[in-house]
């Protein structure tokens, strides 16, 4: 099913024309309205008239999160305040947050993006959609909410937290769709398993729309098995819009990006040059329709690759492979590049472990230490120490072969690794605190 068949299945030549038209407009619009863009383009020696088609995009300068911080709060806004109808802010853990402003047209484009995703997963107005993303400054809650409203579904705005109430309402109202972060979904699934008053048949969920943090294929299997659902990726970021910049279709074979609104490129994060089609690198977005706070060649730091072949679902929109990390999340441990997502997928391969993990990196006597705490499933804790040590050895062996570096594994007590109700915190790098 398509929400907007004409656009989602548009032939790529027509799509390119549409993208070109929109790029020409957005470049002129930002140049004329925002000092930041005027300055950057002038410095790069590019004028709006140099941009004639989407192929000219590589002439434009990049921008990154720091620019949004430097021009906080309104320095990159292109629309006057009378036209801004909503603010959101990113979950910045350090310094000022990133504030995004939206015009009504921006909100309409955003909710269309989410509506396209939900429709691709199979949602209709018959569904009860439980939105367990946080509501508020975070784009997850209201973003999913507006998209779900747009397809006419019944929205249950539980927001995040208060897990027992979430489960009660999920049962009593018979929610058929769950929108939240994958780590919170896993936490909900575990809570349902451990709830003596809830049996799997009480849960009517058909599928989940999970996003706002990177997750793995193994985590998908885990969520699908535990909740008896299909688990789909929904992708987005506050700087570009919010969730619904793209989403998977029923084929679960890559995340379609709605490139009529959000134009993706992949660059080498070191040389900043575009990579060859299909190669991995950093994802960069240009918003083609945004009015409130457009971004042009915004570096997301997400590492992935793009697939331009037509999908079996009939959509022509490019597909993004799973995000395999962030260029700034990457840990360099004893000189080796390590992504938390690699660790997670290895742990989930071994069924005796729960998916929960916590990585601690430190530097002792000038040597990096690399410790990973893991939990066993309850039935694998027991009297036989040897069995547990063998499980640990198996995990170490797999991690060494995948990462090329040996972590120290600690099996810890059940439920002792902190569960998050929003974005999961999986890493503590103490080297940053003691440089």
């Amino acid at each position, binding site marked *: 099913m398509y929400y907007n068949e004409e656009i989602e299945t548009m032939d790529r030549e027509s799509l390119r024309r549409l993208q070109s038209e929109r790029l020409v407009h957005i470049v002129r619009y930002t140049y004329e309205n925002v000092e930041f863009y005027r300055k950057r383009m002038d410095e790069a020696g590019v004028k709006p008239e140099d941009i004639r088609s989407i192929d000219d995009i590589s002439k434009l300068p990049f921008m990154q999160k720091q620019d949004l911080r430097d021009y906080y709060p309104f320095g990159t806004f292109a629309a006057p305040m009378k036209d801004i109808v909503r603010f959101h802010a990113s979950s910045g853990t350090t310094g000022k947050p990133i504030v995004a402003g939206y015009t009504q047209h921006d909100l309409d484009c955003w909710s269309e993006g989410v509506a396209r995703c939900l429709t691709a997963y199979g949602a209709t107005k018959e569904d009860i959609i439980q939105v367990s993303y946080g509501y508020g400054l975070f784009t997850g809650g209201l973003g999913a909410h507006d998209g779900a409203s747009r397809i006419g579904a019944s929205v249950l705005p539980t927001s995040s937290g208060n897990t027992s109430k979430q489960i009660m309402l999920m049962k009593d109202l018979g929610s058929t769709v769950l929108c939240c972060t994958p780590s919170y979904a896993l936490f909900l699934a575990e809570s349902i398993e451990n709830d003596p008053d809830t049996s799997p048949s009480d849960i009517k969920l058909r599928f989940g729309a999970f996003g706002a943090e990177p997750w793995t294929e193994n985590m998908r299997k885990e969520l699908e098995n535990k909740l008896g659902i299909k688990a789909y990726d929904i992708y987005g970021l506050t700087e570009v819009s919010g969730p619904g910049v793209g989403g998977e279709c029923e084929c679960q074979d890559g995340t379609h990006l709605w490139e009529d609104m959000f134009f993706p490129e992949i660059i080498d994060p070191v040389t900043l040059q575009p990579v060859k089609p299909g190669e991995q690198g950093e994802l960069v977005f240009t918003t083609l329709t945004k009015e409130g706070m457009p971004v042009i060649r915004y570096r997301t730091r997400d590492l992935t690759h793009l697939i331009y072949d037509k999908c079996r679902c009939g959509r022509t929109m490019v597909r993004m492979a799973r995000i395999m990390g962030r260029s700034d999340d990457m840990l360099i441990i004893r000189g080796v590049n390590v992504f938390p997502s690699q660790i997670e997928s290895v742990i989930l391969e071994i069924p005796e472990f729960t998916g929960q993990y916590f990585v601690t990196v430190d530097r002792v006597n000038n040597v990096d230490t690399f410790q990973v705490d893991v939990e066993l499933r309850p039935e694998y804790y027991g*009297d036989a*120490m040897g069995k*547990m*040590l063998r499980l640990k050895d198996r995990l170490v062996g797999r991690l060494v072969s995948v990462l090329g570096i040996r972590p120290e594994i*600690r099996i810890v*007590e*059940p439920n*002792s690794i902190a569960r998050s109700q929003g974005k999961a915190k999986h890493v503590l790098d103490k080297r940053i605190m003691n440089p």
Partner: protein
Amino acid sequence: MIIKQLSIFLNNEIGRFTEVTRILAEAGVNLQAFTLSEVSDFGILRLITDNNEKAIAILQENSYAVSTTDVVYIELPDRPGTLAKSIQKISDAGISVEYMYAFSQGNTASVVIRTDDVRQCNDVISK
């Protein structure tokens, strides 16, 4: 005879054992014997109590991983050579011992033995 032993998984951190003894004390569970073995990251606390059901319930309530294991319990006269004799029976029968712990009080020594085949061990040792 064969009795039930509780095994509790503990993070190897200061205060974990204290915490368990406090929880059991508050529940009125008496410890008859225990042993603690540890590797670098975790330990297993093995307990013989006067009320396993209560102990399991209260520990699980406090999110501890508790399991029950069959072990062989014997009482011997507290004299040189009595343990050697019993152990000899086990090794003669080709039974391998995973761990054991013992203590003596008055004229009696109590021994807890965990083997790969608890039933056979119990038969052999009772002869």
